[in-house]
Every structure is written in structure tokens, then in C-alpha cells.
């Protein structure tokens, strides 16, 4: 655990220097960091706990809309609204999980799509609150300590802090009692129950934490976009993108989702001109490759090979 935390510290230090070295490539870096954070949050539930959600865009949208509505209608600063969004996301996740986690099988994955769709319809139709289908602009933001939140550099640091906090959370959980409970429930609910773990409570906690973290990233995303449309922010494709980033990188590993974010956003940038709008084609091809040939994902497969090498060495004496 200390090893991973030190690694995260080193990466954080390198990340702090990034805007000074590449001042012109900040937008791509921000998307990598946001997706790394979202995919890692998704992985808490989807990887460590085995409950595949295809509705995480709901929480992204919730965070973004809280920041917008708080700022434009009540003059609330983004950090307060992000905290509120996290609390509301956790409550939403609680009721949603309470509704579906007592059922096994595909029901949870199916319901996640439906809830995200309902939120999207609400955002489109309740114009008095959300500005409707055309979307809303954010015109003013407070300037804490004279920092302009509209500048890409400030947004980069927010995204960096978000990704670092989420990854640190997962590092701590991976060695905590809760982390072992998550994995026990994923592997076999009946055995977990026999060992005194309540599977539904464990899943609920994982979902609430995952939802709260995702919505904070959503708030930052809203500030980065400065213009949000319901059919973009609540899109099924965004949910799918978040899930696939974690799965391709390696489910249930600490660094897998972050690696997935670098690989997928990088590939997306490389083929941007070739495929234009059809960019998700890459996600489709890569997920098939992963499912058929590398079921553990990139980091999962590397870790497995590393462990096998260690055993081979020990066996040789």
C-alpha cells in the first residue's frame, strides 16, 4: 500500500509540472485525468465489487448541473455545490441500489441505463431548472484567492486533484477490511454471507462512494465545458465510455482504470481525424479484443505475468 501511495505521490509531482512543460496540450490532459478519476470510481463498484453499471453518466450530469444551477440561480460557489452533488449522488445511489441489489443477475446493469435515461428526460423537460434541451452556459465563477477557474491551468489542477484523491481512496480501500469485503462479495455472495458479510450492504456502500466521487468529477467537467447539454452529459455513450475505460485498463486493479484512460483518450486523439464522430469505434474494437484475448485488462494481465515470474523464480530456488 505504501508503495502505491509513494507511486501516486511521484505521479502527482510530475503532474504538477505538466502545465509548465506542455502549456498547449492541457485540454487532452484534463480529459485523461477526468476519465481516470471516473473510471477509478466506477471500478470501486464495477471492478472491486463486480456490479457492472452502465449509468454512471447520471452522476457526472448530476455534478455538472449542481454546479450550474447553484451558480446561476443561487450564486453558490462550485465547491459547495460539488459537496451537495456528492451527497445527493450518494442518496440517489442508496435508493437505486436498495431497489436493485437484492436481485442477482443482469437486473442491476439494466436498471442503471433506465435511471440515467429518466434523469436525461428530466433535464431536457424541466426547463425552469435546467435550461432544457438547448443546454446552459455558465457565465461567472468566483475567483478563490484570485484564481480564474475558467483558465485551463486551474482546471487542470482541479482534475489532477480529483484523479489523485480517487486513486488514493482506492489504494487505501484495497488494503482495508472494506476492500476485502468488496472482493469477497464479487467472488461469491453466498460464501461472503457465510463469512458474516452482508452482500447488499457492501454493494450499497461501494455504490454510494462510487457515485459521490463520480459526481465531484462531474462538477469539474461542467466547469471545463462551461456549456452543458442534457443529451451530452447524461448520454448512454458517456456511461459506456467510463465503464469500458476501466474494463480495458483492468478491472479491480488500482492503476488499471487510469492506464485505460491514457490508452483510450490517446487512441481517440490519434484517430480523431480518421473517424471523426465515429470515434467510439475504437472502444468497440478494443473491448472485443480485451474480452476475447486479455480478459483481465491491460494492467490485470501485466500483474498476472509479474506474479507468475515471481513464483517461477521462487520455484527455481
Amino acid at each position: 500500500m505504501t508503495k502505491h501511495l509513494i507511486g501516486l505521490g511521484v505521479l502527482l509531482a510530475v503532474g504538477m509540472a505538466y502545465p509548465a512543460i506542455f502549456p498547449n496540450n492541457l485540454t487532452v490532459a484534463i480529459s485523461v485525468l477526468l476519465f481516470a478519476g471516473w473510471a477509478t470510481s466506477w471500478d470501486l463498484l464495477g471492478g472491486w465489487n463486480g456490479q457492472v453499471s452502465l449509468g454512471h453518466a447520471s452522476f457526472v450530469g448530476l455534478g455538472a448541473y449542481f454546479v450550474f444551477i447553484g451558480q446561476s440561480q443561487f450564486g453558490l460557489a462550485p465547491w459547495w455545490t460539488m459537496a451537495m452533488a456528492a451527497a445527493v449522488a450518494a442518496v440517489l445511489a442508496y435508493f437505486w441500489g436498495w431497489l436493485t441489489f437484492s436481485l442477482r443477475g443482469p437486473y442491476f446493469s439494466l436498471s442503471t441505463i433506465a435511471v440515467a435515461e429518466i434523469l436525461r428526460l428530466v433535464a431536457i423537460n424541466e426547463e425552469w431548472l435546467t435550461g432544457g434541451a438547448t443546454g446552459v452556459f455558465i457565465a461567472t465563477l468566483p475567483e478563490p484567492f484570485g484564481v480564474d477557474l475558467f483558465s485551463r491551468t486551474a482546471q487542470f489542477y482541479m482534475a489532477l486533484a480529483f484523479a489523485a484523491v480517487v486513486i488514493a481512496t482506492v489504494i487505501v480501500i484495497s488494503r482495508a477490511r472494506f476492500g476485502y469485503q468488496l472482493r469477497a462479495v464479487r467472488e461469491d455472495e453466498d460464501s461472503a454471507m457465510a463469512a458474516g458479510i452482508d452482500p447488499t450492504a457492501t454493494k450499497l456502500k461501494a455504490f454510494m462512494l462510487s457515485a459521490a466521487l463520480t459526481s465531484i468529477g462531474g462538477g469539474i467537467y461542467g466547469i471545463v465545458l462551461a456549456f452543458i447539454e442534457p443529451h451530452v452529459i447524461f448520454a448512454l455513450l458517456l456511461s459506456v465510455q467510463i465503464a469500458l475505460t476501466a474494463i480495458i485498463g483492468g478491472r479491480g486493479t488500482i492503476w488499471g482504470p487510469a492506464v485505460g484512460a491514457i490508452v483510450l483518450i490517446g487512441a481517440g486523439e490519434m484517430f480523431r481525424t480518421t473517424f471523426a464522430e465515429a470515434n467510439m469505434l475504437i472502444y468497440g474494437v478494443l473491448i472485443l479484443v480485451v474480452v476475447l484475448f486479455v480478459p483481465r485488462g491491460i494492467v490485470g494481465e501485466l500483474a498476472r505475468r509479474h506474479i507468475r515470474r515471481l513464483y517461477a523464480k521462487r520455484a527455481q530456488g
Partner: protein
Amino acid sequence: MAELDIFLQNIANGVLIGGVYALIGIGLTLVFGVMRTINFAHGDFVVLGMYSAVLFNALLGWDPYLSLLLAMPIGFFAGVIVERFILSRVVDAPPESALLATLGISLIIGNAILLTFGGEPRSVQVSYASSTFSIAGVNVSMVLLLAGIATVIMIAALYVLLNRTEVGRAIRGTAENRLGAELVGIDTRRIHSIVFGLGVMLAVMAGVTLIPLLFATPTNTGAVFTLKAFVVTVLGGLGNVGAAIAGGILLGVVEVLGASYFMSEYREAYGLIAFLLILLFRPEGLFGRTVKRV
């Protein structure tokens, strides 16, 4: 009297639209029942059907119903190929592997259509698109009626296939118990291919019958249909063909009634809310056998 007329009108529209939803749902539920896989690409196969009708119309000037003759067999073989080369490899992997594979197929189909046809909505103009006729004061759209007739024919054909033929018996056997089916000499890999082919064929057929009514767009429509198919199958009960028919009609009626008596802008949401309520109170579906709650 006028109110009763409007009510009957709504019921008629709901039932006819529901017939097409049932057609989409049957494909999904058939595949789930036999292969225990939720096919996330199902809606994209519906869209593929819509675009096949657009293509045949542009190249050969065919009416959508004529193009069914070609589109359905092509859909069947496309399904068999996808099953052979992709899904058969993950049949013994953890269940979400197959789900993720179909998600990948869905993204590939949607984006391949986007690259080929571009993003603007497409449709096929037919002469009977807006013609209606009335039965006992209820106006029925010609397009919807044709779709309804096609649905009834297809469901009847499927019923005969599943209940009166040797392949159908093998399909039902595989659905009930794969290992047991193999022990009595059924080639379950072949059955899986046939079932997935049938599922895709039904999706393509639904797409073709819908094209005079709806515009096709490459990526979003697929997800919408997949979601509708889920709602239909969960309303009825996953893996149950008869229940999918009832679920489809129920969804059509709920949507139309909700849109005309409450807020029309939430038309899509009524089905989803019904779906969540069913998950809450009767997860086995309205007509399914009881699922054990943990």
C-alpha cells in the same frame, strides 16, 4: 362519446406500436432464454435493419416490405457469423464477458453505419405513409397496421418453429438445461448459432417494418431500441417468448396513454418508470415464474 373515441384510438395505436416492440423484445428474450446473455447490440441490429431498407430502396427502388425478403436471411446469417466468431468464444466465461462483447459489437455496428451513411437521419418514403382507414370510428394508420400484421405472422411462424419442429424442440431443450441437452445428443453450439441468428433476424425485421414510420440515425436510435427491448422483456419476464408479446403491447399502451393523458414530453419515461416499478415489486416479470430474492 368523444372521450371514449379518443381512448379507443389511443388503445389501438398503443397495441399496434406495442406489436413492433414485442417483435424487438422477442428477439432479445429468445437469445437471453437460450444463451443467458443480454444482447446489448440488439437495438443496433434493429437500426441495421432500418438502414438495409434505406439501402435497398436507394439502390433498387424496393418497397421496405419487399426488401424483407433479402434483409431477413442476411440478418440471420450475420447473427450466425457473429455468434460463431465472437460469442461462442465467451460462452463459458463469466456472464458479463458476453455482455461486454455484445456492447463492443453494438459500438462497432453503430459507428460503422455512421461512417458509411453519415449522421443525418434517413428514412424511406412510401406512398401509403400517411394513409389511414377507420374501423368503428377508430382511425388506424396503414403503416402501423402492416407492421402489426407482419408481427402476427412472424410470431405465428416462431410459435410453429419452437413447438412443432425438431429444431424448436432442441432450442427449448437447450434453454431448459444446456448440459442435459448435450447429453441427449443436441449440438448446443449449433443451437446457439441458430438462436442468435433468429434474434438478429427478428431485430432486422422490426427495423424494416419501422422505417416508413421513423427516421433512422446511426448511434442513438440503437440504444433507444435496446432499452425498449429490455423494458419489454423485463415487463413480461426475461427469457419468456409469450410474455414478451404481452410486455410489448403493455409498453406501447402505457407510452401512448401516458403521453396523451399526462405530460407528453415524458412519453419515453413512462415505460422506464413501469420498468423500475416491475423491478421493485415483481422482478420475475408480470408473467414469469417467481425469482428468489436474496
